[in-house]
C-alpha cells in the first residue's frame, strides 16, 4: 500500500488508519479532500462537495422480485456505458449477484440507471422495469451515517407508466479502498508487462511499459527513470518500486499520458484517477468483471465489448448515430470515379480502441487472454442471428443508415426477396451494373470487388507503405504448399471491403481455377489501423481461403479471401477445374465465424 498515504504526507494521523475498514478509509480520503478544500478556500462544507466525489464504487445487482415468471436480465447504465448481467432461469425471483466497478469522478456521471428486461429467444428483449440511483446522494448519505446498509431495495417502475411499480430490485453499493486500488493496479501492470513472469521488470520490460503509457521519453531518459525506480540497485524493478515510481514520478512529471487499453488521453493531473481509470479498463479487457459492458446504450448491451475493436461496430450501432460529430476519426480514401478525396468516418472511441489494442504489444497481449476466442464466438453468433428470419427487419434500418452509399436501383432483386439479413448482405447486382473494362481483352485485369484498394509492385513496397505487421510475408499469406518463388517477389493488390459495400467478389482475370486451400485462423479486424500495426499480422493470422487461377496472360494468380471480425464466412461459387472469365462472380463474404 504505497500510493495514497504519500499523497498527503502532512497528515500524520492518517497513516495510523491503515488497519481501518475500507469504508472508513474512503471517508478519511474524502475528509482529506474536504479539509484541503477548506484550507484552500476558507469555506465550510457541511456536506460532501462535488470535488469529493471520486473513487471506485462497487455496485452489485443482487436479485429482483417480479410479478410474473420469465427469464430476466438486468442492465446497468452509467454515463456513456451500459453493462449487463447474465440471463436468469425462468422465475419471478431472478438472482444475478453481478458486480460492476464504476468510476466516480467529480466531473463524471452521478446517476446510475438499472433496467430489467424479460428475454425471449424468438423476440426482442422487452424492458419491463427500471429505476435510477443518484450515487452521490447514496454515498453521501452512507458517509453521514456510520451504520448505513450495504443493501438497498428499490422499486422498479413501468417505463410506459412511471407511477406504476412492476417489481423490486436489491442492490448493494460500496466504495473500494483507494489504497487497495493502487496496490492492485501496480500488481496488475507488473504482471502484464512482466513477459518472463519473474515478478520484476527488466529495463526492456520497463521501457515497453513507459511506451504503452503514451510516454515518448527518450531511451536514455527511460534508463535514468529505471535507475531511479530501482532503489535497491538490484537491476530490476519490483512491484513496490514500481508503485513508488508511479506515486512519486507522476506528481513531478506525468508518467502516464494515455490509457493503453482504451487510448483515452489522461489529462487531469490526478494519480489516483489515472489508476482508477486504468484499473477499470484492464478489468474490462481481461473479462474479470462479472458484468460485461462497454456499450453505449442498454440496447447495445446484447453485444460484446469487442465490437469496439472493429469497424463493424458501425454495423451494430447504425441506429444510434455513432459515426457523427466531433468524436469521429477519419480514414481518407481517393474515389477513383469522382477523382476526389472522401472521408470515411469512424467513431473516435472505436478508432482509439483499435489503436490501443492492435497497435500496442500490451493491447495484443490482452488479445491472448481469450479475446481471439471471443471474436470467433461473436462472429459465429452474429452469423446465426443474420441467418434468422427475424434479422430481415434490420434491412430497412441498414439501408437508411447507409443511404448515401447504397444504390438500391442496381440490386437484382426487390427488397421483399430477402428473407434474412445475410441474404440482403450478399445481394446480387443487375447484369451490367458493374461494367467490365476491356471485356474482350484477357490481358487487361480488373478490380475484383467494390472496395478500398491498395496496390504495390513488390512486397517490399507494400511493407514500406501499408502492411506494418512484422511477420508479414507472401509465404505466410499463401502457405508453403502454394507459394512459389515467383509469388514471393510478386505484385500485391489488396481489396478491402467496408460494411456497406457489395459483398460479392469477382475474378480479376480469366483462367482456370486450379485449387482452393482453406487456412484456419483468427478473425481480427482488417481495418487499416490493424494492418498498419507492427504488432498485428492480420493477413497471415486471419482465417482465409487461398485459390490459384491459372491464366494465359498473367501466369498464376493467387486470390486470397480473408475473413474478418463478424464477417468470417467465405463462400466460393466456382470449384476446382472451372473456367472463370474476368468479372465473373467468384464468391462472397457473409456474417458468420
Amino acid at each position, binding site marked *: 500500500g504505497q500510493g495514497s498515504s504519500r499523497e498527503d504526507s502532512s497528515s500524520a494521523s492518517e497513516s495510523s488508519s491503515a488497519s481501518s475498514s475500507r469504508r472508513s478509509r474512503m471517508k478519511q480520503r474524502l475528509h482529506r479532500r474536504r479539509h484541503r478544500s477548506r484550507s484552500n478556500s476558507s469555506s465550510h462544507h457541511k456536506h460532501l462537495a462535488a470535488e469529493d466525489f471520486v473513487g471506485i464504487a462497487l455496485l452489485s445487482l443482487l436479485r429482483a422480485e417480479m410479478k410474473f415468471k420469465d427469464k430476466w436480465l438486468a442492465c446497468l447504465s452509467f454515463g456513456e456505458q451500459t453493462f449487463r448481467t447474465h440471463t436468469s432461469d425462468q422465475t419471478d425471483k431472478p438472482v444475478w449477484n453481478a458486480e460492476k466497478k464504476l468510476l466516480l469522478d467529480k466531473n463524471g456521471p452521478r446517476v446510475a440507471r438499472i433496467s430489467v428486461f424479460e428475454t425471449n429467444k424468438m423476440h426482442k428483449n422487452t424492458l419491463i422495469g427500471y429505476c435510477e440511483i443518484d450515487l452521490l446522494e447514496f454515498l453521501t448519505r452512507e458517509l453521514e451515517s456510520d451504520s448505513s446498509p450495504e443493501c438497498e431495495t428499490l422499486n422498479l417502475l413501468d417505463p410506459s407508466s412511471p407511477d406504476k411499480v412492476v417489481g423490486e430490485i436489491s442492490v448493494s453499493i460500496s466504495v473500494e479502498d483507494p489504497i487497495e486500488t493502487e496496490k492492485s493496479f501496480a500488481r496488475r501492470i507488473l504482471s502484464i508487462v512482466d513477459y518472463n513472469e519473474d515478478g520484476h521488470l527488466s529495463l526492456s520490460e520497463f521501457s515497453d511499459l513507459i511506451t504503452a503509457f503514451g510516454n515518448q521519453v527518450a531511451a536514455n531518459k527511460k534508463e535514468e527513470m529505471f535507475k531511479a525506480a530501482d532503489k535497491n540497485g538490484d537491476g530490476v524493478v519490483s512491484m513496490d518500486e514500481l508503485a513508488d515510481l508511479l506515486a512519486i514520478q507522476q506528481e513531478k512529471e506525468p508518467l502516464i499520458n494515455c490509457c493503453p487499453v482504451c487510448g483515452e488521453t489522461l489529462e487531469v493531473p490526478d494519480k489516483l484517477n489515472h489508476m482508477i481509470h486504468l484499473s477499470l479498463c484492464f478489468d474490462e479487457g481481461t473479462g474479470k468483471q462479472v458484468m460485461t459492458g462497454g456499450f453505449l446504450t442498454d440496447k447495445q448491451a446484447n453485444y460484446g465489448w469487442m465490437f469496439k475493436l472493429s469497424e463493424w461496430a458501425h454495423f451494430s450501432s447504425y441506429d444510434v448515430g455513432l459515426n457523427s460529430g466531433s468524436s469521429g476519426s477519419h480514414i481518407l480514401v481517393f474515389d477513383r470515379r469522382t477523382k476526389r478525396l472522401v472521408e470515411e468516418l469512424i467513431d473516435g472511441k472505436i478508432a482509439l480502441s483499435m489503436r490501443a489494442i492492435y497497435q500496442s504489444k500490451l493491447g495484443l497481449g490482452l488479445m491472448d487472454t481469450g479475446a481471439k476466442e471471443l471474436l470467433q464466438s461473436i462472429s459465429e453468433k452474429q452469423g446465426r442471428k443474420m441467418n434468422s428470419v427475424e434479422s430481415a427487419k434490420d434491412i430497412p434500418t441498414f439501408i437508411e443508415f447507409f443511404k448515401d452509399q447504397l444504390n438500391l436501383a442496381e440490386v437484382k432483386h426487390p427488397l421483399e426477396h430477402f428473407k434474412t439479413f445475410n441474404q440482403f448482405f450478399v445481394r446480387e447486382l443487375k447484369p451490367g451494373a458493374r461494367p467490365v473494362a476491356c471485356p474482350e481483352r484477357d*490481358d487487361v485485369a480488373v478490380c475484383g470487388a467494390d472496395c478500398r484498394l491498395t496496390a504495390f509492385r513488390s512486397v517490399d513496397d507494400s511493407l514500406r507503405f501499408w502492411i506494418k505487421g512484422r511477420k508479414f510475408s507472401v509465404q505466410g499469406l499463401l502457405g508453403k504448399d502454394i507459394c512459389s518463388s515467383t509469388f514471393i517477389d510478386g505484385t500485391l493488390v489488396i481489396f478491402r471491403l467496408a460494411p456497406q459495400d457489395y459483398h460479392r467478389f*469477382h475474378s*480479376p482475370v480469366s483462367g482456370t481455377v486450379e485449387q482452393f486451400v482453406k487456412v484456419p485462423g483468427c478473425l481480427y479486424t482488417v481495418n487499416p489501423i490493424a494492418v498498419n500495426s507492427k504488432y498485428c499480422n492480420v493477413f497471415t493470422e486471419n482465417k482465409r481461403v487461398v485459390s490459384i487461377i491459372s491464366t494465359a496472360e498473367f501466369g498464376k494468380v493467387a486470390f486470397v479471401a480473408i475473413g474478418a471480425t463478424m464477417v468470417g464466412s467465405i463462400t466460393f461459387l466456382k470449384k476446382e477445374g472451372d473456367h472463370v472469365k474476368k468479372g465473373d462472380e467468384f464468391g462472397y463474404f457473409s456474417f458468420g465465424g
Partner: protein
Amino acid sequence: STVICVFEKDAIEIDEDLLANSARSLETLVYVGMKLGVSKKQANVGLPNLQNCVLQ
C-alpha cells in the same frame, strides 16, 4: 473482409494512379470491373525476346 491478389513477379503492370495513391498510403475507392492493370507480356509485345534470338 479483404481479398488479396498476388501476381507473379513481372506479370502485371498495375495502373499508375493506383500505385501512386498506394505509395502515399492512400486507399483508392474502386468498383468491380474497373481496370486494374495490363499483362506485362502484352505490354512488351513488339520487343524481341532476346533469349529466343539466334545469331546467324
